[in-house]
């Protein structure tokens, strides 16, 4: 059973004083799927995401990743296990080249081996190779030597997502990858995510409903820190409670 689910939380809880932002969540992400979390503002999506990435320490429950409880592991320690994330607000190394951003992300998987201060970065050829591969996949090869901060906003969003695949993760956690993107760039991002979904398990937080409905295999709807409904896009679309809690609000 644990093999079937790459990521599984049990009664997960994140409390700020008396307020429980995440209140007993049992999330199950099947390996090899694109799984999206949606919900109205304040539903606890981002808090849940922070618990999963290690940015915040959950105050109760368990997080099983690939069969291990990783509840207390710090964010950097989760990369070596095969988890990677992107940020809702673009978070790049602005004054380093696009290629160096990707190479650093690949090197991150080395963990404390990267403390080696006497070898050249060229001694780890595989990180350059990975950067090169990802550049091609992101269609950013032509801009490899540009500073990340000089890319267009859309390209920065693409790089933001691309950095997360450099560590060869099993689970990609993407926090609103289309946030702030222009309408013209969105199809590109949609295509990139479904492309990444072919060889990674993807956990997605997204507001854009057309993307959510078109690429997700499973959708979890959250409300008030709890899971309201979970199922296929068709199932979720048809559910009366979801309409009331979320879609109804938009309509």
């Amino acid at each position, binding site marked *: 059973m644990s093999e079937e689910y790459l990521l599984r939380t049990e009664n997960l809880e994140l409390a700020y004083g008396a307020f429980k932002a995440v209140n007993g969540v049992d999330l199950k992400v099947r390996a090899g799927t694109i799984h999206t979390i949606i919900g109205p503002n304040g539903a606890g999506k981002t808090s849940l995401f922070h618990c999963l*990435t290690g*940015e915040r320490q959950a105050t109760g429950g368990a997080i099983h990743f690939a069969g291990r409880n990783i509840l207390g592991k*710090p*964010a*950097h*320690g989760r*990369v*070596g296990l095969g988890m*990677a*994330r992107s*940020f809702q607000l673009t*978070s*790049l*190394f*602005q*004054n*380093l080249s696009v*290629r*160096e951003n990707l*190479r*650093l*992300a690949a*090197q*991150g*998987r*080395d*963990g*404390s*081996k*990267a*403390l*080696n*201060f*006497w*070898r*050249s*970065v*060229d001694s*780890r050829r595989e990180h*350059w*190779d990975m950067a*090169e591969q990802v550049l091609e996949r992101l269609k950013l*090869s032509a801009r*490899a*030597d540009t500073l990340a901060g000089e890319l267009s906003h859309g390209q920065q969003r693409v790089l933001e997502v691309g*950095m997360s695949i*450099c*560590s060869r993760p099993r689970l990609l956690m993407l926090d609103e990858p289309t946030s702030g993107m222009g309408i013209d760039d969105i199809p590109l991002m949609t295509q990139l995510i479904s492309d990444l979904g072919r060889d990674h398990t993807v956990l997605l937080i997204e507001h854009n409903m057309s993307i959510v409905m078109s690429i997700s295999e499973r959708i979890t709807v959250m409300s008030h820190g709890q899971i309201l409904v979970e199922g296929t896009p068709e199932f979720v679309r048809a559910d009366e409670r979801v309409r009331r809690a979320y879609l109804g609000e938009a309509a």
Partner: protein
Amino acid sequence: MAEQLSQTQPLPFAKTQSRGMLYLVIAVLVGLPLVLPSATLACEILIFAMAALACNLLLGYTGLLSFGQGIFFGAGAYCAALAMIHLQLGLFSALLCAAGAGGLLALVVGALAIRRTGIYFVMLTLAFSQMAYFVAYTLSGWTGGDNGLLDVPRPEISLAGHTLVSLADSRHFYAFVAVLFLLIFMAARRVIASPFGSTLMAIRENETRAAAIGYDTRHFKILVFVLSGAVTGIAGALYAMLLHFVPLSNIDLQMSENILIMTIVGGTGSLFGSLLGAGSIVLLGDFLSDLWPRWLMLLGVILILVVVFMRGGLWGGLAALGKRLGHRDKAVAAAKEEVL
């Protein structure tokens, strides 16, 4: 595949550029004693350039503003001096002692200070600096307190009990310091080009992201502190040997400030900038103090000008100037071509 990669990567350029920089440093090292009135002044420049270079690893490459550099400088000076006086240690063992003392203290200061970030980190390094000063002041039996530690020897370079070169002549001592500086400069370049060094820059740019892609940033910060402290300790020891004396001001907060000022004026994020910064501040001090007893005021004015008008310090200013001249040359060449 390999060929294709080498085509797409800017390595050859980086390598020629790096070699050019090395030649430039060697030229400066050879030229300094020829241009300057005394070898002692040239020694002083290189010693502070060493300390500024170590400070640059923290400030320029990792983004850590440390007021603790004077601790490591002073500790290096005291430890080397005491080891030479009481244990009759030779030149290299004394320098190793200084590097060890600087590195060890940097480990302690670094490990505690990086538990906080931003302004609180800076405050912690300041507090440590104050503490170190009063420790040195209190232990006057060892450090000589206000009077300083006198009669520091300058050992010769010896091998198996035989004296190879005496360093009593300040020109000989300069040659020794210059070789040491070159080695440290090359080592620092190597560190910067390593996985470790590239991660330092990632931390400087965006620590949250660096942690998110798998780096335990605390370990990187502590290690860069240790490396910086060790080099600063060596600089302190050399200064003690140069002066034959360790004044209490070596471990003063003012020393930390001076090292920081040299680093910033020279240009953060450029190792050659540290040499420029140390050179210009030491020379200005030497020149201005002859002109006017209140020369520190003039130095203040110059500092303000550099910080306000030269982002990236002297090195940044020179680089920008070079670029502009280059563009003008190109523009002129292009114009000529058009005419033709």
